[in-house]
């Protein structure tokens, strides 16, 4: 079983990297970009018996910093 964990900054947390990328895109002539937020994708290859609850615990305990980040678990086949 595979699961993709998407870790993103919570709304309201300033993202200096996203801002810099936004400016760079504008410099390259892409004018239609309203906002850029940078996150992280973590691909987990899991035993089939790992429960959803366990994946969520992994996210809460390590993969995301719940002070500034939120996560979304996407199960892939």
């Amino acid at each position, binding site marked *: 079983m595979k699961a993709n964990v998407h870790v993103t900054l919570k709304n309201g*947390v*300033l993202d*200096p*990297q996203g801002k*810099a990328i936004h400016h760079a895109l504008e410099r390259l002539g892409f004018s239609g970009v309203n906002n850029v937020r940078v996150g992280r994708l973590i691909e987990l290859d899991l035993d089939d018996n790992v429960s959803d609850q366990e994946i969520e615990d992994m996210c809460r*305990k*390590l*993969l995301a*910093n719940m*002070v*500034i980040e939120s996560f979304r678990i996407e199960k892939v086949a």
Partner: protein
Amino acid sequence: MKAAVLVFPGSNCDRDLAVAIEKICGNKPVMVWHQESELPDDLDLIAVPGGFSYGDYLRSGAMAARSAVMPAVIKQAERGVPVLGICNGFQILTEAGLLPGALMRNAGLSFICRNVGLEIQNTTSPFTRLYKKNQKIHLPVAHHDGNYTADEATLDQLENEDRVALRYTENVNGSARNIAGVLNKKGNVLGLMPHPERMIEDAHGGKDGYNMFASLMQVMA
């Protein structure tokens, strides 16, 4: 004074910190490797050094905060043993949940390595009692992720409870309310981004960091 300095793979201020502790507090600290699961139980100080533990993988301090030695550190912190986290040590203590908030990438995205102006806010903690309220000092910073972030309610609580230990006198890295160091509720855990251990003798260009260690000595006396 009996002190322990934690050492993680990628720590690089552990020896400077040990020198400062020995010089000011009189005894050589025990160096404790991150894989130890126990700490001596009569410690007067646990120091978490700066560096790039685990190569800053995942997030700065994230891996170190989950290493074998940390449950023992948390246990002793809860018992009231002073814990001092400097730079990466600060990041580790927030990741471990011993201190509130998080340290994000510097607002200007650059690594900052220079002396910065600071103002002492709290003068009651075991780390800061030899400083004067609003005293201006200078200490070096050297970090990429020093942008202190917490929600507004937490920031208000920190201010109301006198837990902002020191502030930058200028906007160095985008930190909320220019916070450079915070204390836990009990006041026995301090995390700060600047390096007091690099400012303890004239050859360093100043001694503004000296009193952080001398304060701990006074507490014990």
